[in-house]
């Protein structure tokens, strides 16, 4: 039997809008679920997905991709890459799997919402494949770390993290609930697929793939590159949805959704990808600095994508780009200093050679972040490890759920951005985080940060031990310096030589 070319039947086959007779259109597609903002069904008919595929084609391609990722894994199973890898690299794997794997399930639910409530047939069709993509991502990224569990208990957090009140897990859930789970189909198209995926997944999935290949971890490199090929396909759901909104007089609404999503995505990738690229990846395996990567992908490519669609740059664009210079350095210091609260062992990444690299990539690093690290290093050299461990909680941003931090030392610019709303004072890391809250305070007002919970007596006993128990961090799981402080020896030598 001769088969028609896809192009000859695709448009008819996916034209699945019909006129409901048993229920009203508003019951079938409630605005609260579609997020169509009153743009009528006919106006959505022009939605034209740039990437077209059929189910048989999809299955054939995905099968090949899976075969590729699994065969690389199988071929390298008996290699000693895992054992021989730098401990900083293993920490990247742990933070990645814990923060991402179950987030993929959240993304699957979001794609499913577009599959059911997308107002355009083409959106529903693409989202069906997107939903299956995200299921694949969740399963792959749970299966791959699973084999490491017997070797290293922290890998259990690939699955465990989202089921706990560990602070980074709260931060991830808060952002993903906001952008993926608790949004309408149209909002998901704009916030998840356009802003989050087109804009930011490249950071973690392309940036780290390059570093992984350099570090010799071909299993991880092939896994996340394989995932990114799905992302770059279903990320295209958002563009045509934005075109429909803009063409129907909803540009301001669309712009606001984009601005909120970029602000939230930036925080997540800043703390996840930033320290991974500039600190945990061994210096000799770094392809680019995080800032260089951000400038290329966000200030370059994504900025053009925004303009091409007819959107404006978010009002905070210059402020965000200014943060490329420092925010992830501050997050790194927080991650390392509060290391017992992590499910991975952060690498300090501040050997004398690392600091040369940091100073070259971020001029002024030594006079700012370096000053604070100097004090930490002095304590380590003198054997006073207890002075490098947390004794109190950092204040956590009421939007990002990440500690409020910025530049120490001579460039000191740390600042609270408070807001009083309905008698409660909220604290934010920046004007941008506070602005997100102000766009829809009813949405965010009830959430309690880890510090709010501590002060409300939810964490008992009210000390570090109680906080670690609250976060479900068992002995053998809580983080410590990735290299067991071996890197401090270089400073001991330097001090001795100076004497």
């Amino acid at each position, binding site marked *: 039997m001769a088969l028609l070319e896809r192009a000859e039947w695709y448009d008819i086959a996916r034209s699945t809008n019909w006129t409901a007779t048993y229920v009203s259109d508003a019951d079938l597609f409630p605005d609260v679920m579609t997020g169509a903002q009153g743009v009528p069904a006919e106006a959505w008919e022009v939605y034209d997905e740039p990437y077209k595929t059929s189910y048989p084609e999809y299955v054939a391609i995905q099968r090949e991709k899976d075969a590729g990722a699994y065969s690389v894994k199988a071929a390298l199973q008996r290699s000693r890459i895992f054992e021989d890898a730098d401990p900083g690299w293993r920490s990247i794997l742990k933070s990645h799997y814990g923060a991402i794997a179950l987030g993929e399930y959240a993304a699957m639910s979001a794609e499913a919402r577009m599959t059911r409530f997308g107002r355009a047939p083409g959106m529903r069709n693409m989202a069906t494949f997107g939903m299956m993509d995200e299921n694949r991502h969740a399963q792959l990224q749970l299966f791959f770390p699973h084999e490491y569990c017997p070797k290293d208990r922290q890998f259990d957090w690939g699955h465990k993290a989202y089921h706990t009140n560990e602070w980074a897990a709260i931060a991830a859930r808060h952002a993903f609930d906001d952008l993926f789970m608790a949004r309408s189909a149209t909002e998901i198209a704009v916030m998840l697929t356009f802003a989050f995926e087109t804009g930011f997944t490249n950071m973690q999935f392309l940036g780290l793939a390059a570093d992984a290949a350099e570090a010799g971890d071909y299993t991880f490199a092939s896994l996340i590159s394989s995932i990114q090929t799905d992302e770059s396909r279903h990320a295209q759901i958002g563009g045509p949805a934005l075109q429909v909104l803009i063409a129907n007089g909803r540009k301001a609404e669309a712009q606001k959704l984009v601005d909120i999503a970029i602000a939230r995505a930036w925080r997540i990738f800043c703390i996840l990808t930033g320290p991974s690229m500039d600190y945990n990846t061994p210096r000799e395996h770094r392809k680019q600095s995080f800032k260089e990567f951000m400038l290329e992908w966000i200030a370059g490519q994504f900025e053009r994508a925004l303009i091409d669609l007819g959107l404006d740059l978010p009002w905070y664009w210059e402020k965000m780009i200014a943060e490329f210079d420092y925010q992830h350095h*501050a997050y790194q*210091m*927080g991650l390392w*200093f509060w290391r017992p609260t992590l499910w991975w062992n952060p690498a300090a990444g501040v050997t004398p050679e690392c600091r040369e690299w940091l100073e070259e990539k971020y001029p002024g690093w030594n006079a700012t*972040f370096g*000053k*604070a690290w*100097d*004090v*930490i290093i002095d*304590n380590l050299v003198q054997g006073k490890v207890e*002075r*490098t461990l947390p*004794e*109190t*909680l*950092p*204040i956590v941003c009421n939007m990002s759920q990440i*500690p*409020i*931090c*910025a*530049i*120490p*030392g*001579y460039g*000191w610019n*740390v*600042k*609270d951005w*408070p807001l009083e709303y309905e008698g409660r*004072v909220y*604290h934010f890391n920046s004007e941008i985080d506070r602005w997100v809250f102000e766009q829809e305070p009813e949405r965010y007002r009830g959430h309690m940060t880890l*510090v709010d919970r*501590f*002060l409300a007596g939810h964490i008992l006993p009210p000390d570090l031990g109680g906080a670690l128990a609250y976060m479900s961090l068992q002995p053998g799981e809580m983080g410590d310096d990735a290299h067991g402080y071996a890197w401090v020896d270089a400073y001991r030598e330097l001090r001795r030589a100076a004497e």
Partner: protein
Amino acid sequence: MALFPVISNFQHDFVLLLLPVDTENTMDEVAAAAAHHSVGTRVAPQPDKIVRVRRQGAGDFFPRDVRLGETDVRPMETLEFIFCDA
């Protein structure tokens, strides 16, 4: 006597910290409590200086001997701790 949590924003440190102090504490005592978490941990000591306390963004410091409970500082307000000449 009442537990009174404030937020410490200590000069040259990188992060805001939860600082549990007491309404009976003088500003010098509050400053000492804040210094415990920052100075010698991530901030280099400046032995010839004292640490003064002010509201975030304020120009004036609180008098050194005023008790927290005597001021209009609210719980969980952000205070700045600044090195000053003695």
